[in-house]
């Protein structure tokens, strides 16, 4: 008796998706890449060129200006608009930190770029004993289920 209850909504959903696919060509998409090369190390201000007018369901580009707040909390934007990120950034830019298994701190790999907001500068070995107690959820976000091989060397 349970099976038809599950099957009918699934079929209805499938039909809706098929109907939507039929009209997909009318749904606009972002360009593959930004038309201009953007200077490295600069706090990109989208509003310098893009006005606040939105097209369709697209968010205002000024929301994506790289202020300090944006850089610090970019996770909110990346989790819903990573397609927009990829217009300017290659995926390897994200992978500088978000790899799942890092060989060295990004701040060591990019020691010549102190202007980049890279985590754990200085002697974080001491500080993590304090920071890890105050906000372990902040650690978990990156080191929870992956990228923790060096953590488990001590935390057995």
């Amino acid at each position, binding site marked *: 008796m349970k099976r038809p209850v599950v099957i009918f909504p699934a079929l209805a959903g499938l039909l809706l998706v098929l109907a939507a696919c039929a009209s997909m060509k009318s749904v606009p998409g972002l360009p593959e890449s*930004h038309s201009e090369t953007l200077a490295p190390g600069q706090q990109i201000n989208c509003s310098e060129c893009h006005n606040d007018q*939105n097209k369709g369901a697209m968010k205002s580009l000024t929301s994506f200006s790289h*202020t300090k707040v944006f850089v610090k909390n970019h996770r909110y934007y990346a989790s819903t608009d990573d397609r927009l990120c990829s217009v300017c950034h290659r995926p390897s830019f*994200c992978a500088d930190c978000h790899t799942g298994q890092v060989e060295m701190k990004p701040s060591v790999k990019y*020691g*010549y770029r102190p202007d980049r907001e890279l985590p754990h500068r200085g002697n974080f070995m001491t500080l993590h004993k304090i920071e890890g107690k105050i906000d372990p959820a902040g650690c978990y976000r990156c080191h929870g289920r992956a990228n923790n091989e060096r953590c*488990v060397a001590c935390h057995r």
Partner: protein
Amino acid sequence: MKKTVSCLLSAVLLLALPAAVLAETSIESTTIFRFFQDSRTGFPQKNFVPATQFLSIDADKLADGNLSLHLYGWGRLDLGDKSFNNDQADGNLTHGYLKYRFNQANAQIRAGRFIINEGIINEKIDGVSARTDLPLGFGISAFGGANVHSAHIPNENTDGKGDAIYGGRLHYRYRGMLELGVSGLYETAAPALGRLSNQILAREGKFGNHRLVGGDVWLAPLNMLELMGHTSYNTETRSVADHSYQLNLKPLKQLVLTGEFNEYRDRSNFLTSVMFSSMYSALRDMSRVKGGIASYAINSQIDLSADYRHYTREIGNADRTGTDLRYRFMDNSIRTGAGYHYLRAGSAFAVTPSSASSASYHELRGFIMRDDTSYFASADAIIFVFDKKISDKQSAWEVATSVGYRLTPLLALSGDISYGQNPQFTDDLKGLLRLTYNLNLSSKGGAR
């Protein structure tokens, strides 16, 4: 196993090269030789010279122009003593996938090893993902595959992850002012743990299956107002895992005022990590982080910000406050910055908690860098001054300098030296040599 991974990584990257050179390709190769010595009293002296090769290949416009290949990984060979684990060599294919991008509806398909970051989902898989926008403001994404097992838990044959994982997100957008999303993931049953202490974690309900659902929101009714965040719910513990929300106000073009609110239930949040779930009991379950940032661009060269955060845990609370300044000049070729922060934290958060201890400390940082067409150089200094000594040290500090020369527009040689003193080491002197090769045949906009 590690050797196999290293060989596989090299083989895959080499095999990819012929295809890559035919396309619009970006190759970033960084070779790093590090030098450091461990001469702690009571331990045998060790000299470490790990050589690490990082390689990133992005080959765009393959096939009909919409297909791209992305391969990132690293390999390490210890030329001196073993620098990390029991292996003289190590390596990892961190990302390796094909992406097909459709011209309409932001649709794309990925296949291979990659990170999924959609709504409340943040996972690394060997599998397939697809997503597209739909008419009327809707959008849908889905993924499925095998978990990437990248960690080794001592005395276990597993990293605590189930074998397969799948999930997706459905969203709705309205006129560029509202986005609502629901997302969820389902992982096959968590593996049985062998170590007794870990078995107890599972029996006590502190470790279990990875199954989450959640919702996210983005709301901007006015250009000067933006609210975003998400809530995740753990269906195994039947409890909220986290609330994370941020409110941005932009009363002036140059000014951003931000408020944030985060609440975590550690049991539900950490349920699928043996390492974290084994630690949370001492801190108890609930924590909150509230705070705000004011960021002001004085002009195109100077940014000033001030921030405050209040941390609440059942064992105590803490406050962090501070300010940062960034200054760029000479056509952005010279960049400098300075910052100061103070963390006020009670003894419960101290390295060794006791009535006489403290976790409070001051943090002071300053840097300057020059990036010229032929050379680049930087200096970076950071010091943490503790209110109460840690291991008989009042502070931990480090000064790092880097100098590099571009041998050709694509090839650069650089060297770093850092020196510091801290509770771990009386003298902490490290050096490295770095050879960087950046080839960008892609028409894509700036990548950095």
